[in-house]
């Protein structure tokens, strides 16, 4: 990199040859780039490429063992590396930082408003408490937090993830910083909420003339959010282009590989539609009018309120099917999983597994049924008993159901390990040494060992990165071919569902708003919410549906006091009066597709009997 001494006056930030190491292991080597005022630069790279270390270095927030081993960071001409005192004085004033963990960002024992005022008066001592309060409330409204006046006096635990992230953005911008470092701020959020935050970032950049360094791990999100994209690979800057140019002519091999790996929603590539589903045989699992509510003592208010987690769920799953259940957080997916597996009893409706009602089975009968359907959980680190060796984990199900003797059990365990690709030497060791991918393989092996006929995957792949997800999907196909498993995939990742599932149900606020085959859902969605989901999904392809015309501003209503009529009415651009009074039920749209929306034409024959293809026995 050429060493031009005097940085151009209008560049806000210029980094020259920055290197950072942890102990003696280099993390960043020779990073150099400039950032003009009011511009948005996104930094993209795989896990471990050093993105967050770069963010922290710029915010002069490196704590041991990380230390800067070389180079300069010029902020408005003054080198932050050489003058740490000046750098610290900038923190919170000129350079603001918003992290990826909004929930833990504020002191739980103080109101959000008080902490905003405290921060503002810390960086602007001359400002009076009253002015600070007014400015904070004005900013809360600017980031579209509903009833900001009331929210000002509420505590951090009363904020949802999305709202807290907005509050943290206010906290960053309240001191009118010149540079805002956003470190992976959308990662923990739902797709629709993340999309709104990105829209907000653009507005604020225009309104506050603040330059933004946007760190994130998914290329599509980066391209949507920024003017220029900088690609980081193993601690080095490998490329920097505008989003359109990057997608069209990726310069560096790594970027090309990154783009190729990205699954697509609409363009070609192998997807679940091609899977044949055996319709003639009886449905392996049928869910009819399932409902479940939990009693929760609302914070502060007197009395107990009921959260209707699952309101009205209907679908059938056929043998050999890869059935997908998609929805954002809070839509009732995990409550549904607990009902399907009989961990909890439904308040209404029933779950038929091979003709038998799981919800009403006696505990003893339920335990026997367990052998024929199994669950694979989400958190690779949390779902394995932490202290028993791998062999014992695999043999436990056999011991519970008293299958075979010790020798047979050991052989069975070894066989299953081989099948899922776990090396035999791991039999004795503890799971703590395994990678996330290996742990999920162990989970699948544990579920498989009882030779179930149905496997329910609760967000099994969401904790893994792209490449690992691909390998496991191949494994699932292989196992399905050999053992004839039927899968139910519960997930919030549309791209994975597109690639794997033959039929998909979309859930919103406890209801199945749409059930459709793969191709039909992605190319002709029957429900506005499905369309909104597709519009917000991060993808590099040319979008079929633009978020502006699919989704109104605002958060989903709370499941405690649900509005009458269709739950999506408050956020649906096409909603009309009937939507706000009557809750549409699922109705056929032809070609085995169903949707619960009045926009679909009224079918001529009676409602109920067409809901499912085959009358259940």
């Amino acid at each position, binding site marked *: 990199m050429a060493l031009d001494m005097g940085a151009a006056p209008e560049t806000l930030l210029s980094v020259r040859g920055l290197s950072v190491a942890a102990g003696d292991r280099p993390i960043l080597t020779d990073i150099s780039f400039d950032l003009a005022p009011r511009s948005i630069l996104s930094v993209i790279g795989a896990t471990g490429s050093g993105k967050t270390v770069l963010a922290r270095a710029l915010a002069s*927030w490196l704590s041991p063992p990380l230390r800067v081993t070389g180079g300069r960071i010029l902020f408005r001409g003054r080198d932050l590396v050489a003058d740490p005192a000046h750098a610290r004085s900038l923190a919170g004033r000129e350079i603001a930082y918003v992290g990826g963990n909004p929930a833990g960002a504020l002191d739980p024992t103080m109101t959000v408003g008080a902490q905003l005022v405290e921060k503002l008066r*810390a960086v602007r001592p001359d400002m009076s408490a009253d002015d600070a309060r007014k400015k904070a409330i004005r900013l809360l409204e600017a980031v579209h937090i509903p009833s900001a006046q009331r929210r000002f006096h509420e505590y951090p635990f009363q904020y949802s993830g999305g709202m807290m992230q907005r509050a943290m953005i206010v906290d960053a911008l309240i001191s009118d910083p010149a540079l805002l470092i956003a470190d992976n701020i959308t990662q923990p959020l739902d797709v629709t909420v993340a999309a709104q935050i990105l829209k907000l970032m653009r507005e604020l950049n225009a309104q506050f003339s603040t330059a933004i360094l946007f760190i994130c791990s998914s290329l599509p999100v980066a391209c949507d959010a920024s003017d220029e994209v900088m690609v980081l690979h193993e601690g080095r800057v490998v490329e920097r282009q505008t989003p359109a140019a990057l997608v069209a002519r990726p310069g560096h091999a790594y970027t090309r590989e990154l783009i190729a790996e990205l699954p697509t929603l609409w363009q070609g590539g192998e997807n679940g539609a091609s899977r044949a589903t055996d319709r003639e045989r009886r449905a392996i699992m049928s869910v009819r009018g399932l409902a479940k509510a939990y009693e929760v003592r609302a914070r502060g208010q007197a009395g107990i309120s009921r959260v209707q987690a699952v309101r009205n769920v209907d679908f059938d799953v056929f043998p050999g099917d890869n059935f997908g259940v998609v929805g954002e957080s809070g839509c009732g997916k995990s409550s549904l999983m607990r009902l399907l597996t009989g961990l909890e009893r439904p308040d209404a409706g029933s779950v038929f597994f091979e003709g038998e009602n799981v919800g009403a089975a006696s505990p003893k009968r339920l335990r026997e049924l367990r052998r024929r359907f199994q669950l694979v959980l989400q958190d690779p680190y949390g779902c394995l008993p932490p202290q028993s060796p791998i062999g014992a984990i695999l043999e436990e199900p056999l011991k519970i159901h008293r299958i075979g003797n010790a020798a047979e059990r050991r052989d069975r365990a070894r066989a299953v390990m081989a099948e899922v690709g776990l090396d035999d030497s791991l039999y004795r060791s503890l799971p703590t040494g395994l990678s996330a991918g290996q742990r999920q393989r162990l989970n699948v092996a544990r579920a498989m060992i009882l030779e179930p006929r149905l496997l329910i995957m609760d967000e099994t792949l969401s904790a893994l990165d792209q490449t690992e997800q691909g390998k496991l999907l191949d494994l699932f196909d292989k196992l399905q071919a050999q053992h004839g498993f039927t899968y139910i995939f519960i997930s919030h990742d549309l791209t994975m569902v597109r690639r794997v599932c033959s039929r998909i149900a979309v859930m919103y606020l406890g209801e199945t708003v749409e059930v459709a085959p793969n191709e039909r859902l992605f190319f002709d969605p029957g429900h506005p919410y499905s369309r909104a989901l597709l519009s917000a999904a991060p993808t590099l392809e040319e979008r079929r549906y633009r978020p502006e015309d699919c989704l109104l501003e605002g958060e989903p209503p709370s499941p405690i006091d649900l509005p009458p009529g269709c739950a999506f009415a408050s956020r649906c651009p096409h909603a009309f009066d009937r939507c706000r009074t009557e809750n549409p039920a699922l109705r056929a749209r032809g070609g085995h597709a169903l949707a619960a929306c009045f926009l679909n034409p009224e079918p001529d024959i009676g409602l109920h009997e067409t809901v499912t293809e085959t009358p259940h026995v």
Partner: protein
Amino acid sequence: MFILRFLARRLGQGAIIIFLVSALIFTLLRVVPGDPVRLMVGGMAPDTLVEEIAAEMGLRDPIYVQFGRYMGKVLQGDLGESFVRPASGAAVGGASFDDATRGERAKVLDLIAETAPMTLQLAVLAMVFALMVGVPIGVWGGLYPGRLPDRLALYTSSLFVSLPNFWLGIVLALLLSVKLNLLPAIGYRGFSYTILPALVLAVEIAPFIIRTLTVSVAGVMGQTFIDIARVRGLSRNQIVFRHALKNSAVPLLNLLGVQFSMLLGGVLVIEFIFDYPGLGLLTINAVMQRDFPLIQGIAIVTAAVFVLINIAVDLLATAIDPRLDY
């Protein structure tokens, strides 16, 4: 309003606890060998007379009947009469069985009411001393885990917790009061007599305060909102004193709640050593003289005070940390 509902529920639970406590102690005293009537009548009473008095007092009825009668009286605030102490409250013994003065005995409630304020004064002073010593060391240790202050906190708390209060009491009384004549030690003739016993009691409480604070302060300092606060532009003092201390106050409060029953244990022994006329000395003499109604009354009163203190601690905790909801 929320607080009324909370208080109602907690006082209800408290009532159940006090009921359980008095039931436990009541049966214990009746089941364990040693006939209370013989003790109460004392002297050379013939057995026939003992039986007659026992029947008259209803001590031969089934336990639950006696307990029902006892609780009935307790509800009207009458904790019964002491077996041994006359109305004047002196420790008496040796009068003959048909002695007229055995008639009017001191009311348990009066005896407790007389001595409780003294113990309260001792306990409060001890808690003040303990906090004065414990809080600085604990917080300082928590801010620098693993380094010198933390080590100091560890060593002081380990040593203090290893000093048995009765032994320390004797040694301090020997050194400070008798040899150096700095502090009066024995009996009670003014506030200054509370200092030495309070010091010994404080040594017993301080280690738990130190340990709780080091753990909770270190825990809070490790949390993300403290780490991020630095980048948000808050000064170190603001972070430590406004945020860290407030968050670590709740574990300390919970400790102080549980600490009360330990405190009373310590007060008991220390009042015995220093002949300090509080509830502790009254309890010990009550047990030594097998004065069952008095023991029972004290157990009920301490249980009631423990329940009230716990409710106060919980209320205070919700005031500090809104997430706690009881």
